Every structure is written in C-alpha cells, then in structure tokens.
C-alpha cells in the first residue's frame, strides 16, 4: 500500500496542485500498486504516509501552512523516511527562511538549507529545467528568489524561465524534490512522476504509455526543446 498525502490543500492548492496526487495515484494503480490518497486538512494530524505533496499558495496561507506543518512535525516525518514533493510556495516552506507579505522574514521547516527572498519582480511564464539529461517543463508564477546553502543540490539547470534565480531551479535531497514549476507538474512530466514513484516503491517501473507522453512531447516542441 502506497499512501500519498496532499498537505493542506485549502491553503496550498492555488494552481491545480491537487493534480499531482491524482497523477501519482493513477500511475501507481495502473501498475498494480494499491494506493491510498489522503487529504490533510489544517485541523488533521499528520498521517503516516510514504509521500507528502505540497502545493503553491498565497502569502497569508503560506505563512499559516508553515506554522501548521511545523506543529504537525513534517520535518520529523521526512527524517523518518517519508518522501516529499514540493512546488512553488511549498518549495519555499521547506527551506530555512522565506519572505512573504512585504519583506517580513519567516522561518521555514528547514528540511533543506535554502533561503527565499523577495525578487525584484514576479516570475511568470513557461519554465523548463534540465534535470539529469531530461527536461522538466512547467509554468512558474512566484515572486521569490531562492538561494541554496553550501552543498545543497539544485533540482536542475534552468533553460527557459527563471526558476530559483535564473540559473538553477528548486532543490534535490534524498527522497525530496522541490521546483518552482507549479501546479500539476507531474501531469506535464510523466518521467518525473515515475522517478518519484520508483523511489517511493524502491523498484524499477515498467513503461506506462499514456496521452501525457504526447502532451510532454508537445510542450517540448512548443518551447523549442
């Protein structure tokens, strides 16, 4: 049984981020795995899950979500072996500090040494990131600039858009992926969904052809990649 938990969808779910849970569950089920999808509300305790998903959110909800996840012990669950995928505001929450609501600085969950400051202007548009020889495509819409601490690996190198700072996007740690490609990034990048799923089930996965492969190919063409 694979347990996939969407964290605080009412606070972190601005851009169709809920799609990532559905994609993960569907791709696992079609390969014969049992999957339980769990939505974790602000008043719920943190469930025992194999994979936690964090989406994007507006400033106030992002700050509130951080407090809730801190109190519920997401960092402890991660250190105890859970997998985590975070997009957009979720990425900022996993870092050590972030700025929202003007220049107020808030403490993140500190899963990764990463600091987000407010950028000069918002980054809005198509994003493509080279991740281990493959392109991750998506859409970004955020005002943050994220700087990684020493030894922290970015998710990949930016080839379209801005990502964390114009050069790299997101970060990568054992069992943890974070990107500014918001919303249903797993729907746009079936290989990325499978990379995470393979890690969750600790097994090689058989290919799973779906219409998402056509979508991925079409997005690459549209971006000239």
């Amino acid at each position, binding site marked *: 049984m694979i347990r996939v938990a969407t964290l605080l969808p*009412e606070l972190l779910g601005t851009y169709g981020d809920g*799609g990532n849970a559905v994609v993960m569950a569907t791709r696992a089920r079609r390969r014969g795995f049992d999957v339980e999808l769990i939505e974790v509300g602000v008043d719920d305790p943190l469930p025992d899950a194999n994979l936690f998903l964090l989406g994007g959110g507006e400033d106030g909800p992002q700050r*509130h979500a951080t407090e809730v996840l801190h109190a519920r012990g997401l960092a402890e669950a991660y250190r105890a072996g859970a997998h985590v995928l975070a997009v957009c505001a979720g990425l900022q929450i996993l870092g050590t500090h972030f700025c929202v609501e003007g220049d107020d600085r808030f403490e993140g969950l500190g899963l990764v040494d990463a600091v987000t400051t407010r950028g000069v202007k918002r980054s809005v548009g198509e994003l493509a990131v080279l991740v281990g020889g493959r392109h991750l495509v998506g859409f970004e819409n955020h005002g943050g600039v994220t700087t990684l601490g020493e030894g922290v690996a970015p998710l990949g190198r930016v080839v379209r858009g801005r990502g964390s700072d114009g050069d790299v996007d997101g970060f990568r740690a054992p069992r943890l992926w974070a990107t500014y490609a918001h919303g249903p990034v797993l*729907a746009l990048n079936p290989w990325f969904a499978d990379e995470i799923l393979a890690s969750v089930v600790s097994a090689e996965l058989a290919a799973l052809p*779906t219409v998402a492969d056509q979508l991925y190919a079409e997005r690459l063409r549209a971006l000239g990649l």
Partner: protein
Amino acid sequence: MVLRKGQPSPRLALSPFLNVISVERMPSALKTRDRLAVTGVRIVNQLSRRLGRGSGTVAGGRFGLRVDPRLLRVLAQGREVALVSGTNGKTTTTAMIREGWAGDVASNTSGSNMPEGHVAALVASASSRVVLEVDEKWLDVTVRDCAPRVVVLLNLSRDQLDRSNEVRAIAERWRSLWATVETASVVVVANANDPLVVYASETAAHVRWCDVETSWTADAVSCPKCTQTLHFAGANWHCACGFARPTPSTSLHDDQLQVGAATRTLRLALPGAFNLANAAMALTAVHELGVDVAEASQRVAQLSDVAGRFSRRHWRGHDLRLTLAKNPAGFAAMLATIRDLPGEIWISINARVADGRDPSWLYDVPFAQLRGRVVHCFGERRLDLATCLDYAGVDYVLCSEDSPPSPNGPVTVLANYTAFQDWLVRSTK
C-alpha cells in the same frame, strides 16, 4: 492606428452615429479637449470597424483616453451608472440589468470591460442610463470615474492567475476602495455567500446582501481576515475571529426570489443555477435603480442568448449548443448544468493571453463527474485537457477542428474564452 497605403480612405460620414451622443448634445461644460477626445473616439472606432480590425471599441477608447485621461469621468457625469464586477457572470448579469432596466441603456455589450471599452460605450450612446461590466482589476478606477449609483459584486475565485496573481489581492483592493471614495450615495449589491466578496464589500456604507447559490468556495477556505479555517454549514459560514456571513436582504431558493419585502417565482430561459444567481443580483440592482421588480423579472426571464452564450449553432452537420466557462468555478457550475444533457460533450481549451497562458487550472475542475461520458477534446491545449481527463478517469477522444467527428446527435460545446470566440466564428446560426 495607422491607415495603410493603397487603402481607400474611409468616408467619415456621421450617419452611423445618428443615435449616438453628438458633440452638440454633450453637456455644455465640456471643454475643447473633451470634445476633441470624443470625436477622436468616434473616428478611430469607425475607421477600425471599416478596416475590419476588431469590433471597433478598444482602439477608439484608447485614443480618447490618450487625448483626455479624464474622459470617462467627463462622459459619465450626470448619468445614472450601474457597474458589475466579479470573476464569473459579469457579461450575463450586465445584460440582465440592461434588460430589466428597459429602454435605452448605454452598455459595453462587446465585453470590452476596461476603461477603453467603457469610454467607447459612453460615446456610442447618450442614454442617461448606463450599465457597464468591469474587469475586477479596474473596479477601483472605474468607481472613482463613474460615481455609480449601484455596484454589483458577484463572486471572486481563481482566474487567470498568470495575470492577476492572487484573488485575495483583488478582494483587498476592493475593500480599500470603499474607504477612499465618497460611498454615501453608492449601493453595493454583494454576494453574501462568497466570503471574499463579503470581505471586499463590508466596508461600504450601503450594502444589499444577496443569498444566492455559490457552490465554489475553494478560494475562501481560510478566513480573508485572519487566515484561520472558515466553517461552512450550508450557505452559512463563519470564522472564530467573528467574521461571518451577513444577513441577506435578497434571497433565491429554488425559483423563489425575494427582493426587499416581496417574493415571486423566477424562471429563466437561460439554463443553470448560476444564471438564477446572476438574475437575483441583477434584479436587486434594478430594484435599487427604482424599477419595478415584477416587470423587470419578466423581461430578464426571457433573455435567452448573451453574446452567443447558450446559443444554438451549426457546424459541419452538427447541431451545437455553445457554452462558455473560463475558470474552475465557471467550469464546475457549467458541468453541473450540462453533464446530464443528451448528446455529445465537446470541450475546447486554449491558453492564449486572454485565457491565461497557464492551463494548470484544469486540475481544479471537477471533471470526475463526467465519468461514464465520452468527452471530445478540442482547442490548442486539447492535450492538456485529454491528460487531465485521463487522470480523472473520464474517457476522451482527441479531435481536431480540421477533421471533425461525424454527426451523432446534439452537441454541447463547452469552451474557454478564446476557444469560445473561435467556435462562434467557426459555426453558423
């Protein structure tokens, strides 16, 4: 706009403007600059129409505002103005107010809902009655310029987030608007069931709260005042901080409409619970404008086609009914209306600038309710749609406008903004 070489120079006959505001009829207080601007709006719009560039409402308005940045204020002066804003239902509600008010009403029927469109509408008609739909981001500017009698605030939800960023920022802007304008003479007609609208309206001096069906509250799960969780029970909602649903003075339950003291049955030619909600708010506005609600509601009930929406069309042997939805809340409402209709469902998705460049929102649409049906996927982003449907467990067929499926009963087309315009152009009456 520039005339191209070799094109016959358009005759600037004033005949098409017999009904429209003439410089002579304009208030005598108008300064030369205003008159120049109005004449400019007219000429540019006429040229743009003749050259086949658009419907001729934006270019002229933009020109006029460049000549005279205060033009909207000048044109609105002395007229009775109603404004309609919100994420969904602006165009329909504006049409309903026009219908309910009756007689000659100046209005931006083309759907250009920013200042250039407003200027064009006020140049095109000298009527003392004005109803304008207003883009959410322009409401504050438009209220300041038009000094409206009534402002209708329908709902607020995620829409084109690549352009407007955050829906709460809009609620915040509306809220601060009422603190900075003279609001004693404005009546705000606001949706009491939408917490973001309530947050945005409660600072106004006079509000008529409307209890109308509002199924989408996913953008107001946390309190706009304090970010704690809002508690919903039916249409009612409240927060621990004290922020709560106000007591409505208009209500609509099933088809029973109560505005002020009177209750009457409201049945519309237009489909959908969301259109009943629009009508209830339009009739509340019309009531505030001094019109008899009984008569107005009869006129509103007969409205059957708003800018092509819900219209029956033909295309390559198919009988189509065209419907429009632009964002998750609109799609959720429309899916509930069309999912049980007989025949095929075609959904058409684009992601041009006017649609929002990012179709991530598809994953906020409750497509799973279409399980058991087959959806034909059209539009430039049909692969995004098909992928979303696939993961939602809904059967789909990838289609192309160039190779249409063969006719097989009536078709309901559900399209987002530019895709809808494409279908209007592609099909015939």
